[in-house]
Every structure is written in C-alpha cells, then in structure tokens.
C-alpha cells in the first residue's frame, strides 16, 4: 500500500513540468488596431486552427506537407571567388 502511494507520488512529481500545463497557452490577446500599426492589411499572420474553428467556424482540412525549395538561398560557392593576380612580365 505504502509502495503504491510512494509510486503514485513519484509519478505525480515526474508529471510536473511535462508539456503544457492545463489551461495555459503561448498566445496573447492583441487588438487588431494595435497589430495594424506594425503590419499592413495585406500582411499574413498565423492564427491557431482552434481559434478559427471556435471563433469563425472554419475547419481547415489537413494538407500533405510540401517541401519548398528556396531558390534564392545562396549556394555554397555562388558568391565566393578566389582572389588572385596574374603577373605576365610582358614589357
């Protein structure tokens, strides 16, 4: 019996600090007018799917993950040039 209690207590201790505590989240409430002082109306901002579902009633279907190739990313050698000087000794 005592062992069970100790084990339960140990589990309880271990469970603390795992993941997100119930009721907490990483979001903050901000008024749209304040956001617009930083962003244009065309800006794209991430919102949670839960918020969309609960507030707007919109359900987004899961999509397959797309791998996007960034063509603008500098490749290893595109910009690098070896510095050299050629002396031909021609009079």
């Amino acid at each position: 019996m005592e062992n069970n209690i100790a084990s339960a207590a140990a589990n309880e201790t271990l469970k603390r600090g795992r993941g997100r505590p119930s009721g907490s989240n990483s979001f903050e409430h901000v008024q749209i007018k304040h956001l617009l002082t930083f962003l244009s109306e065309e800006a794209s901002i991430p919102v949670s799917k839960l918020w969309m579902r609960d507030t707007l009633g919109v359900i987004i279907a899961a999509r397959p993950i797309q791998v996007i190739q960034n063509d603008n990313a500098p490749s290893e050698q595109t910009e690098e040039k070896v510095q050299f000087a050629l002396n031909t000794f021609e009079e």
Partner: protein
Amino acid sequence: MFDNLIGQPEIKRQLEFYSTAYQKTSVVPFLLLNGAKGLGKTEFLKQFSKSLTNEDGKPRPMLELNSSTIKNNQMFFEQIFMPIVQNNEITLFFDEAHALPKDLVMAFLSILNTERTPFKEFNWREYTFQFDFTKISMIFATTELDKLFPPLKDRLTILDFKPYKTDEISEIIKGRLRDVDFEDGVLAEIASTTRGNARSAVKRAKEIETFCETQNSTTFFKEEWKELRQILGIKPLGLTNTEVQVLEILKERGPSTLQTIAAVTGMSRTAIQRDAELYLLQRGLMKIDGTREITKAGMLTLNEITEKGF
C-alpha cells in the same frame, strides 16, 4: 637576376641555383618561402618566375593566389586550375599557404608526391587533372610556418627569409630617394625604425619624399628627421604604441604577469604575446623569467621616448 633587389643573399643564391637547374631539368622544386610580412617574398619570387623561360621563349607568368580565399577543392579546380593553369606554362604562387583548406592540402599531398617523374594525375569527382611539373611550378609562402600541415611541409623545400640589416635598409631607402642628400648617420637612424622590414623601408622612403616635396628641399638632415618623427610619431626602434604601453606598465608596476598586462591594456593574452611582446623580447627591451620584466635597454628606450616626446 636580382640586381634590383637588396639583401637576402642566401635566398638569392638558392633561387639562382634553382633557376640555373631549371634550364637543364625544366623542373623547379616545390618551394616554401618562409618569413615575416614585408621581407620581400613576393618580389623575389616574381623575379625568379621571370627568369624561368617557357617553350615560347617568354618569361613564365606567375599567378599569385591568396590562399585564404580558396575554401575547398572545387573553388581551386573550377576557378583556377581548369580556366588558367591547365595546358599553360605558369608559376602558381600560394601566398599565406597556412590558410589553405584541409581538403586541398590533402590533394596536394598526393599531387606533390613526384619522386620518380615530374608528372602526376589527380582524380577529382568525374575529372582527371594532369599536373606536368615541367610546365607548372608550384611555390608556397607563409608567415606562420608552424600552422602548415607537417606532411605538406615535408614535401616542400624551405627558404627562410631573414630581417634586413641596417645597411641594407639604408640602401633600400637611398635607392628610392636618389635625388635626396642625407646627412651622415641619418640613414642609419631612419633604418633603425623600420624593424628590419623592407616594406616599412619603402614606406618610410615615401614619407621622406613627401616631406622633402612639401619643404621644397633635397636635403634631409638630422633636424628634418627629428621634425618628421615628431609629425608622424615615429618612435625609437619603430616601436608601436602598444609596445610602449607594455613597457610603461612594466616600468610602473614592476615584474608583472601576462594576465595583469592583459587586464590593464584590455587586450587578449594572445594579442599581447603576438603584437607586443615578440618584438620587445627580440630587441631585449623586456624579459620573461616567470614574470614579465623591463630590462635596462627597455628603461633607456622608454626614457628616450618620454624625454623627446615621441
């Protein structure tokens, strides 16, 4: 071959020997020029390469590469070897060779392994490169020999450049200022501030030329030298402000640790060792005996700086 270059008699003899041998063998050994900055490594090598005659009778061109800008084999083979070196007769000069990337050093270990014939094939990716050392001379230079990969060093013939003597420096300065008359002893005084460095001597000659032009004068006496020193802050023995600062710390605090000097100057220990202590030790202005200490010569030099207000 080196008529227009002053000093480095040993280097001249060695390079002349290799140049003469080239006329018979068509091959130059893989040389490594070792020495501090400003001792004339590049200038001597240019003259040497010029003395090597190609099949068309023209002097062999020299491609001077900044090794630190070669990041890998790909950059070397694609930007240098394929477009410029391949099928040409040329001297390849790798300046600051201690900064070569590791994979190119490894490639060179294989390429420079030419004990039997002066030809070597090197495979890289889908290519096979031909290194014909009767057409390609490969020469390296470094200011930091200890940083060069030892197996690469073993494959190279090392030529050590030495600091210039006072009379050689005087000759370099006088050679640049043929129209200027120097008072006896002034050239030796000027030479003592160039730290045995040919490049500094050329720079000093330029400063004197500018001074004489502004004064509309073709004479340079002790008075003029004193004035120029005051204007440019040229200290005895060509000491830098950091070196003077270290001497001052040692004078004020007595024997000190490297840590103390670092703390007072705000410089790193390595920077102090490399940029200040090395020359002070060479000139006997300080000594290290457990702690750092200023010597008598150091005290005299410091007093001269204080008295003359340099």
